């Protein structure tokens, strides 16, 4: 977790130049240059994109479940959970030169994909809102809920491009 532009335990590729950093499921990553952070196939999972507009330091989390703190389960894989993921992402952003007081958030995902699985999507979103609020980070834009899968690109300018399964694209 120490290298600013690598992800959990180095399981992700490096990002030379203005490349692309893929953030997998239960994963988080920080970018300090012109890289685009991407994560795909957000169903019930939630993506939290944080940027410090002054320094341009950005981070993206793709979390699967809401609570890792209560059970202590988030210690091993912080990115798996919304709460431990946000906490870790903030710490990594600060280590990379961001100020937590300047961070702003964009949130996407958390869809209700299936009736079979209880509403984990909305609970992920609610947990993200709660944690960001507790950290004093405003959510400036969001594309959450509904029953649609999403893919996101977090651009160097701090904007989050959200593409839905039907091809509809929004820039947050």
């Amino acid at each position, binding site marked *: 977790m120490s290298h600013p532009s690598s992800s959990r335990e*180095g399981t992700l*590729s490096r990002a030379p130049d203005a490349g692309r950093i893929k953030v997998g499921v239960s994963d988080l990553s920080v970018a300090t240059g012109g890289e685009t952070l991407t994560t795909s196939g957000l169903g019930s999972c939630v993506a939290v994109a944080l940027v410090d507009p002054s320094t341009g330091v950005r981070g993206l989390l793709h979390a699967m479940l809401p609570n890792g703190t209560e059970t202590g*389960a988030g210690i091993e894989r912080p990115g798996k959970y919304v709460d431990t993921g946000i906490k870790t992402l903030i710490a990594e952003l600060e280590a990379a030169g961001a100020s937590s007081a300047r961070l702003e958030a964009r949130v996407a995902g958390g869809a209700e994909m299936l009736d079979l699985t209880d509403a984990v999507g909305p609970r992920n979103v609610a947990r993200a809102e709660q944690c960001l609020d507790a950290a004093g980070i405003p959510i400036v834009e969001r594309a959450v809920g509904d029953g649609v899968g999403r893919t996101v690109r977090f651009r160097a300018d701090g904007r989050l491009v959200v593409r839905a399964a039907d091809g509809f694209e929004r820039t947050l």
Partner: protein
Amino acid sequence: MRVDVRALGACNRLAERGAAQAAGALTDLTGTDLSVEVTGASVASGEDLAEAFAGRESIGVSVGLRGGLEGEAVLAFDADNVDALLSLLPGGASMGRSAVSEVGNIALGGFLDGWANYLGKAIDMTPPRYFEADGAAVLPDGALAGDGVFLFESRLDATTTDLDFSIYMLPDSGQFRDLVVGKTAPAAAPGADGGAGNDGADSTAVPYESLSTFASLAKRGSANAADNIAMMTGLDTTVDVSRLRFVPLADVPAEVGVEPHAGTVFELQGEPSGYLAILFEEESAAKIAASMLPTEPDEPLGGMAENALCELGNVMTSGFIDGWANVLGTSITHSPPEFVHDIGSAAISPLIAKLSRRQDYGFVIDAAIQTEGIQTRCDVYALPDERELARALDRLSES
């Protein structure tokens, strides 16, 4: 041999880290971004492996392992990707075989570093041996012999070019067996199973023979599901691949991919409980649905097609799990189908999230079923609860 599922998780994690090191080494060498898409341990008999690799042509290198681990590791590229690889390397196509050997050597060295660190012992590699192989001949020596092996397989993906390759490692018994049964993996439990807590009462050690039996059962289930498609549609079907693998659950969505898919998902109730997803790529879904309908539907994937796919999913699922209950001595039923039509990885992610509350790794049965004539393909993913499966398999060995 009893296999501790949590220790297997720790081993898989090592393979995953090793693959990331290999990707890093290749990124440095080629200047092309490479990332690890998926790492898993296949539980397969020699016969299954021969079948799964039929028709593939590979080139690559193999190295013998001595010291901390003994066995063989192989790095293989699809023969079709070789030109893409060579074009990225210093020296280009003129380097040919020596370039492939060099790349393989560097990547395998990276791969094995993680294992050596973990074991606290050096792993010596014999000089790389270049090979061109048809079918399962690519696999390490010994993979096709005997009743079954664990084969660690990582697939790496180049983000800008078509350069997927796989690393296979088949450790000999001995030290590796000790790793898998948990004897030499003290960090295994917290490392492999962070999400579950330690509930002590649940054993996750299962006899290898039972795993092997379950792999055969899964294969038979895939054949049943394919037969049921044939029955419903009148189309000839074949099972292309059917594998029982042990993988990090978080990798499964990436494996399904970001293409739009349509299909059905089911909850399995009983022991083991879990989920089953039957996913067609959009075009395949529309074609197979149309083949079941008396008239051309107004919309390719509208209400009529949805009903057809749900009906098809029902009979496929029944066929798939048919036999599990008998062999495992339990009762397993499935929920009514739920239709999904979305980005493939998004459609499966809630199932993964649900299972991930209790486990980070899981056994995944994946089967690819193809129909002749109208050329469709679907993937079936069965995701059983790890502890319940372990319990059922354990009982299987006692009966």
